[in-house]
């Protein structure tokens, strides 16, 4: 897989991060954050969350710069010892598998609610995973190129959706600003930060980057694009539907899309376009996480990559099918959020501190 002399460029690293971050959050973020914040100030929480993500990105890139050309799977045993590193790696791999399953299941749930109400969800998920395996099997460089194809598509569709719904947005629904004080805004920081989870991909991605020194910049740009799109979506959804209503809707963004009234060409309703966008955004996150999980296993056990991709299929499928109903899916989302704090926050900072102490000690000796 690494035989070619390809490397991930700056633009590619940015695109990958944006596409990894933008996923299920595109339809759930307004509800999840509205539940916590309960005032229209979610966008302020978003900005704060973005700030936290960039700080996390700083730690992650600092950590990875110490081990050029190595993924976290390769350098964590060096740093904390064989067994502790093994446990760390296994935890991270579990996280990636769960995220992949969660993305697949959420995609299928929306599809069941809006497009294919009679098709069994198993069929949808199996097809989805099969197409995912087709790209995951060929490694990171092909995946990155695929994300580059989808990036403009996603961008255009989101902006189109927002442009069409602009007439429905009532900015009075966004007022008053800070009407409930700062407390609600702070409450919203956790869900909004977690919606930007995806920066942990740099723990692995930086090993394949052309100029890993620019990784911080790429991360910042990538987070910024995702944050910008998410804020626009939140503002549009809240503005059109009000906070109180958004809290009660399962898929608020889709309700916004449904409210768009227009007749272009043959299609009366914009949902079909949104479904395309939805499948693509979840798919990109899905394949990235799937790839990281299989790459992790192959690097932990120092074996070939492809068998692990095939081997992971049943696990991803089980993760996707594990939640019994839609509430179970959201509960899984909550667990994944907590795991993300560990994977993207605690582990990198811990490793960074250990690396720092070790270097100090080495310098003394």
């Amino acid at each position: 897989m690494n035989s070619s002399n390809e490397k991930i460029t700056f633009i590619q690293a940015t695109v990958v991060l944006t596409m990894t971050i933008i996923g299920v959050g595109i339809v759930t973020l307004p509800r999840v954050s509205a539940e916590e914040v309960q005032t229209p100030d979610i966008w302020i929480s978003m900005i704060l969350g973005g700030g936290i993500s960039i700080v996390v990105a700083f730690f992650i890139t600092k950590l990875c710069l110490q081990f050029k050309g190595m993924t976290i799977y390769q350098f964590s045993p060096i740093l904390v010892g064989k067994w502790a590193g093994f446990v760390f790696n296994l935890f991270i791999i579990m996280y990636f598998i769960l995220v992949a399953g969660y993305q697949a299941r959420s995609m299928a749930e929306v599809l069941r609610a809006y497009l294919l109400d009679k098709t069994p969800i198993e069929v949808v998920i199996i097809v989805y995973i099969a197409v995912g395996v087709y790209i995951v099997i060929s490694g990171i460089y092909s995946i990155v190129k695929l994300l580059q194809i989808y990036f403009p598509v996603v961008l255009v569709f989101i902006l189109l959706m927002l442009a069409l719904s602009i007439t429905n947005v009532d900015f009075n629904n966004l007022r008053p600003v800070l009407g409930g004080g700062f407390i609600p805004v702070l409450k919203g920081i956790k869900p909004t930060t977690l919606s930007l989870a995806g920066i942990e991909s740099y723990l692995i991605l930086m090993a394949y980057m052309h100029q890993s020194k620019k990784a911080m910049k790429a991360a910042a740009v990538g987070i910024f694009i995702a944050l910008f799109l998410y804020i626009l979506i939140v503002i549009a959804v809240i503005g059109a539907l009000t906070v109180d209503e958004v809290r009660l809707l399962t898929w608020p963004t889709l309700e916004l899309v449904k409210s768009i009234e227009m007749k272009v060409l043959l299609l009366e309703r914009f949902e079909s376009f949104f479904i395309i966008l939805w499948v693509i955004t979840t798919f990109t996150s899905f394949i990235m996480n799937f790839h990281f999980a299989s790459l992790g296993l192959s690097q932990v056990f120092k074996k070939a990559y492809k068998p692990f991709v095939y081997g992971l299929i049943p696990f991803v499928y089980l993760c996707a099918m594990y939640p019994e109903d839609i509430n179970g899916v959201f509960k899984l989302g909550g667990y994944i959020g907590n795991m993300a704090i560990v994977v993207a926050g605690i582990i990198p900072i811990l490793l960074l501190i250990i690396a720092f102490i070790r270097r100090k000690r080495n310098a003394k000796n």
Partner: protein
Amino acid sequence: MNRWAWLQKKKKQTKNGHQQVKTHGTDVFFSSSLDSNLEQLQNILGNNPDIAIRRFYINVYKVNAAVVFIKGLADKEQIHEQILKSIMLELQMRECYVKEDRATGSDIKEIIKDHVITLTDVEENNKIEDCVMEVLNGDTALLIDNVDTSLLLGTKKWPSRQIEEPITEATVRGAREGFVENILVNMSLIRKRIRDPHLVLDKYTIGRRSQTPVMVAYIKDITNDSIIQEVKKRLEKIDIDQIPESGIIEQFIEDDFLSPFPQLLTTERPDKVASGLLEGRVAILVDGTPFVLLLPVTITSMLQGPEDYYERWFVGTLIRFMRFGAAIVSLFGPSLYVALVSYHPGLIPTDLVISIAGSREGVPFPTIVEALLMEITIEILREAGVRLPKPIGQTVGIVGGLVIGEAAVTAGLVSPMMVIVVAVTAISSFSLPQYGAAIAIRILRFGMMLSAAVLGLFGIIMFAMAITIHLVKLKSFGVDYTSPFVPYQFNDWKDAILRLPYSVIKERPEMLKPKDSTRIK
């Protein structure tokens, strides 16, 4: 690519077996006896009626000699005027070159070579096998008694068709010249357009039995070396008995034989080859076919025609937009109809749903069956139209398209809406300038229809994703098939779907990594 490596591995094994056979026959050289040499040649060439052996006597030196050639491949006129006449008549008149009666064999050979024969190509050769090869190519071998080498005289004159307008790639504006089946003429057609000493034509002979001449053309100081090396490496691995058409070479050297997409461009137009070469591509000419291969290919080449460049820039750009739209309609048309009508009627405007439902009333089949029925009929019609002579082909088109379509609707077999969808799709697929690309889209259209029938819009999305994934994985001679779109090569976007004015496109395509990138100064 893995598949390529696997194929090569398999081929290598067979090749080793073949080489062993070849080493058995050691090289045989000419002896100094004319009779035994002629006998050897006769043995190899056999007693075929197209082989001519003309013995004669060189009066001045009192030696026997003979010319050997193939009737029809060698130019009789030249043999007569430049060889036989010179040796038999003019040598006698030019007394000054008669040194002595005791001139040795090699003296005679030198004199004949340097002073007598007035042909441009004269070569010495002492291996019988090589001599036979050249004779079979249309050269004439001159054998002299007491001389243990033969003189190979370039008298090639292969039968050739007149240069005509290319039928498969007609343009409104642009050169009317097309390649012919003769590689020598084709070479000259390219050379005529690029009078640059850096234009290199590397000769290969492929085909154990057919010994087909194959030329690899590129411009030395533009084309990237890695592409040239890759082409040569792959060509050298071909070991086949015969090359009837460049399509065989294409199938041997393409990257992925499971892909529906063409990985080499075939063209009959010398102007297209010339501009391809100047962009930094490599051309492969094969004797016996007017179709020249151009490589590497990227996805943009599928939507481009030579006229885009000859017309003014906005015409070219608009036409490209139209083709792009046509490609999308041709790929998605019927499957979208199937998905929307049978799965998601709610997504179509209400008025339209009612009229579609009305038109489908009485049709006994599900939409997918209806669609497949019509699509397959169209494909059969198209195939029938290609094979038939032109006037009958048109009749078939009219009978098939109009009569059958109309009758099928009146009989209630298909809905009129379906006929419209299928007709629009068919017309769209005709507008693609590349035959190979149109075929790829036709194949994928059926897959798309089936997945739409199984999973509706989701099926279409997943199938489209699978296509993009395949495209991302595909490479053509080390160049990403999706370039210049992905990875982003912004400079090349000026001449991808857009065709901006020449004052803006000043550089050769970056994706081909040319050594010299300035096109316009």
